[in-house]
């Protein structure tokens, strides 16, 4: 049995007939082909699948696509605007905020959400915000620096 699921993803409307059990991460990656969001631990621990549902980040491996029906989703592909990287993306470039890059899409989406709520977070606030996400390369130090870079360069990326 399938149901019709329609949602806006990064400003574009999509509709698909899917099984109700389909998880949002698989809808985004397999049905829409937007593979920037990563499917990681499958247990809501790692956070590499974080996207925004309406205005809030969510671990998309722990939400049914059906639950996002009628809502607006924003993925890492939606950060760049008119060819300009979002400051959080530029921060990860400037401060070497990734090595393998697997956790990066989730980190970026959470970082953007943090900075929208708190434009000048200190290190403790950044670490708290990303505490539900796992990076096995960087030791987090450079991720924290990258997000600080973004805070200090809001609206200044080339």
């Amino acid at each position, binding site marked *: 049995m399938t149901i019709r699921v329609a949602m806006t993803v990064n400003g574009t409307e999509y509709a698909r007939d899917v099984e109700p*059990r*389909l998880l949002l991460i698989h809808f985004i990656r397999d049905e829409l082909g937007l593979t920037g969001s990563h499917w990681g631990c499958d247990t*809501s621990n790692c956070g590499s699948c974080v996207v925004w549902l309406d205005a809030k*980040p*969510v671990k998309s491996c722990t939400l049914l696509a059906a639950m996002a029906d009628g809502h607006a989703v924003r993925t890492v592909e939606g950060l760049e605007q008119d060819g300009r990287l979002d400051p959080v993306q530029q921060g990860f470039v400037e401060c070497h905020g990734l090595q393998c890059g697997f956790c990066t899409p989730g980190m970026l989406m959470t970082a953007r959400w943090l900075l929208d709520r708190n434009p000048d977070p200190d290190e403790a606030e950044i670490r*708290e915000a990303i505490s539900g996400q796992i990076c096995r390369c960087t030791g987090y130090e450079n991720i924290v620096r990258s997000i600080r870079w973004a805070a200090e360069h809001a609206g200044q990326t080339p």
Partner: protein
Amino acid sequence: MQVPAHVEYERATSVAHALSLLSRPETRVVAGGHSLIPMMKLRLAQPELLVDINGLAELAFIVLDGGQLRIGALARHADLLDSAVAGECFAIFHDAERVVADPIVRLWGTVGGSLCQADPSEDLSAAFAATRATAVIRGPDGERTVPVREFHLGPYETVIGRGELLAEVRVPVRPGMGSAYQKVARRVGDWSVAAAGAVLTLDGGKILQAGIGLTAVGAEHFVAAEAEDYLRGRAADEDSFQAAGKIAAGHCQPVADQRGPEDFKRHLVAELTTRALRRAAARVGS
């Protein structure tokens, strides 16, 4: 790859609609889904129908109403953590919410879902037990209320029957109250190794009433009843709090698992209960 088994999905448009959908057997409510969906992936839960109540805005509130703090079942963990009125009345909820899961999960998981999941290591169940809260349940025959201390029948089991929905939790606010929650976990976002919540109502230096909630340590209904009885009428001082901690540790039933052996968990119960009582007393009148 973990995916849930086949399931049907309906979105409730009102509480009445939700109740009619819930009359079908093998139906589960989904709100935040952050406990249920992982359990469905593991086939620990295998409902035939999911009723999505995320659209029921009338269940998403936190208000001080008369002498009660009323928390709608659909209030998110993050809402409770952000609620100034909840924090002023019951610091225990802010203490607990800071250590429930992680900030992203807290945006979606709900207060009602936490209680209804009835996980034996769940934090809010202990906090609500300590506060002597009341669950408000709606069903086909109207509304009924159940003390949170009678709400859980056992691990993953509650008094909610077929066709019923937890609507809100009411917490009595009294003058002279202070509260606190103390948890030890292996890492951020993990379940408790052990945790203790305390609510004290004081008259001067004397304890009028004590509420102590424990989680993850096999305390019946998440309550340390013997320690509460011990404290009633005693002086609110360090000797009382330490003695109550030892009583709580002696009466709970922790089991050894990968989070630690039994004696370690009992040690934590004694220490965390004492700390929670100490902090609750310090917060009275603040």
